[in-house]
């Protein structure tokens, strides 16, 4: 059974101790933890410029999910107070006909957390939905900016929301630019990790504004959404007709429309072809939908919405994410720490947390002490940053014999490793990186190693070397 990944910081913690996220201080819902294996997480994040309809879409989708039980045996359950508060706000806005406010840029974005039960042909899931602020994408200058997008790290399927109408009005921007910003943000966030295997679900929002510009078959598809009245409280909903729609048939039609929209993007959208090519060259899957969260423009006098908004193909992005969902197997890395008497210096005087964080961003970390075969932290969990109660001799062999030999082994040592010479064969030389700390020069010869003498500068250099080393090892697998 896999260990629950925290929905907030995306690390694995020791939940026996506490269900607070130690990084962000949010309480992880008990239901999320207890039902983790039955309701595996589906990570979702909206990516797009300001005012392109991300929040509106999420609001409409949430209202659709609330009503889905009328037609499918699907129920949903908000998992925490933040989600309940947001849903309440959405209901108020829907009742009043007001538009959702734009998402504010927050250093620590807090997702919607929902359990979805019995989705036809899919099963049950925990939805973890991040609505990123448009400003986060307007310009990413440095690593600090990328932190606002930390939700992207675990997300396999990204909702790429674009209002083609708004893009057209903005002469300075192109579809290609948003993808570049996303890739740049991911590079800063993931530091060398590949985008391969992730999926871009391109969602053309405000499709009602595109009118005759869309090909006829796509227009027909949009206007004939069987679920468009699902959230109406005042008009007839015709749920009997909705119940005749099977998920499989609906999804088959979605795939056909995706191909049509891809063709439309290549031929009719500036830089559309380049955007598609670049995504595919990065190893990403790319799929297309179009939708309208509100079905019409707001009233020009008071900017309010018609109270019975039509939700045009609002379910499509979610269905794409559900069907494409495959867990990302983060590439494993082993961190083997010194647990000898001399290691006190290591934990007291050097920023090992920085190295562990760096490694955690590059892959799924499992930590050991030298001289002990059992791991000291769960895969994905942060390692302890103190010497062990029972000091261990610096021995690697029994650990190396047990682990996968294709996984990079990062060793941090304060002195001679007794059995290092036993692994002097070339293959091991390419898998083991040794960081010597608290010594003037390397006590033993090894092809991949670095000596940390000065704390800050040398650790920065060590982190860069680690990124290169791990990339090299992963490329050789």
């Amino acid at each position, binding site marked *: 059974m896999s260990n629950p990944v925290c929905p907030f910081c995306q690390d694995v913690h020791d939940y026996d101790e506490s269900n607070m996220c130690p990084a962000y201080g949010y309480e992880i819902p008990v239901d999320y933890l207890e039902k983790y294996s039955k309701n595996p997480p589906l990570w979702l994040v909206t990516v797009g410029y300001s005012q392109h309809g991300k929040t509106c879409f999420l609001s409409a989708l949430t209202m659709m999910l609330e009503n889905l039980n009328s037609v499918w045996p699907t129920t949903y359950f908000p998992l925490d107070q933040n989600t309940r508060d947001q849903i309440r706000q959405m209901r108020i806005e829907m009742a009043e006909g007001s538009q959702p406010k734009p998402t504010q840029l927050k250093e620590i974005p807090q997702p919607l957390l929902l359990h979805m039960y019995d989705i036809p042909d899919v099963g049950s899931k925990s939805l973890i939905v991040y609505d990123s602020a448009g400003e986060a994408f307007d310009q990413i200058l440095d690593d600090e900016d990328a932190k606002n997008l930390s939700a992207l790290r675990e997300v396999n399927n990204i909702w790429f929301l674009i209002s083609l109408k708004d893009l057209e009005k903005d002469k300075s921007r192109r579809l290609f630019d948003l993808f570049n910003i996303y890739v740049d943000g991911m590079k800063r966030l993931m530091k060398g990790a590949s985008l391969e295997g992730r999926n871009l679900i391109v969602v053309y929002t405000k499709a009602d504004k595109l009118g005759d510009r869309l090909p006829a078959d796509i227009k027909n598809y949009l206007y004939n959404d069987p679920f468009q009245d699902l959230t109406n409280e005042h008009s007839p909903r015709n749920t009997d007709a909705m119940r005749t729609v099977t998920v499989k048939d609906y999804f088959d039609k979605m795939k056909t429309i995706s191909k049509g929209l891809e063709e439309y993007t290549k031929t009719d959208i500036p830089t559309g072809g380049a955007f598609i090519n670049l995504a595919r060259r990065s190893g990403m899957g790319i799929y297309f939908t179009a939708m309208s969260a509100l079905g019409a423009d707001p009233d020009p006098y008071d900017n309010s919405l018609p109270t019975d908004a039509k939700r045009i193909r609002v379910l499509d992005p979610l269905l794409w994410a559900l069907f494409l969902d495959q867990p990302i197997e983060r590439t494993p890395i082993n961190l083997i720490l010194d647990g000898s008497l001399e290691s006190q210096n290591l934990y007291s005087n050097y920023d090992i947390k920085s190295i562990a964080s760096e490694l955690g961003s590059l892959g799924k970390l499992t930590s050991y002490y030298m001289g*002990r075969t059992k791991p000291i932290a769960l895969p994905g969990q942060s390692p302890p940053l103190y010497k062990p109660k029972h*000091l261990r001799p610096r021995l690697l062999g*029994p650990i190396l014999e047990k682990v996968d030999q294709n996984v990079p082994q990062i060793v941090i040592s304060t002195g001679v490793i007794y059995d290092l010479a036993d692994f002097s064969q070339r293959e091991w030389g390419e898998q083991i990186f040794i960081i010597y700390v608290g010594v003037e020069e390397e006590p033993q010869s090894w092809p991949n190693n670095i000596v940390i003498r000065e704390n800050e500068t040398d650790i920065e250099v060590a982190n860069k070397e680690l990124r290169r080393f791990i990339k090299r090892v992963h490329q050789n697998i």
Partner: protein
Amino acid sequence: MVNIITDRTGFPLLYVGAIDAYVHWIPITKVQFEYFICDNPSTHFDEGWYQEVLALNPRLSYTRLASRHRRSRTVNYWELFLTGINPEEIHLFCEWNEATTGKEFWIPTELDWRQLYQFLTEQESILDIEELFNNAGVSARALSVLKAADNASKSLGKRNMPRSLAHQMLMSQGVMEWVACEEGRNDWGGMGNPDSNFQSIMRSPDGPTDNPRDPGGRRLRHYGFRLIVPAG
């Protein structure tokens, strides 16, 4: 036909009909004991313990052993073996082996050891241990250690003189090996003889049992061990 089993660390034991038991091919090596130390995070076999043992008999990597010759004689090969250990500590290693193999591991008695030595002295050495051990499921790392030890024992004999199996298994010019005494002053004694460059003792391997004064007390740098597994 040669009958081989392996211990928990993947090192081989050879069946010897003379005592109806399997016996470790060579004295227990540091590599083997390290598996036990790493699997057993007790307060006893900690870093301090291992430093004390290595101070008496340092560790030499088997990868370096082959290259260390002086006048065609492998030097310091005894640094492969775990010595400076006392019988109570050996028992814990036996229990650890038994936990997953389901077999009983014993320290041989002085009679066992003598019978083994006399029998194996009359057997010819095995020419290709790699083939023998590959077919028996011996681990790759164990095989590397065994080949290094085998080269060392080859270098000790007289040129053009065939080695006996006892010699190949380093029952002479290996280490002093703990045995359980059947009668006498102590419960524990020693058989075998170490290389004179390691510890100079004038004795033949199967001579009268050596009787250390205090087996559980001061660590004896030239004392190691091998184990037997009764076949029944």
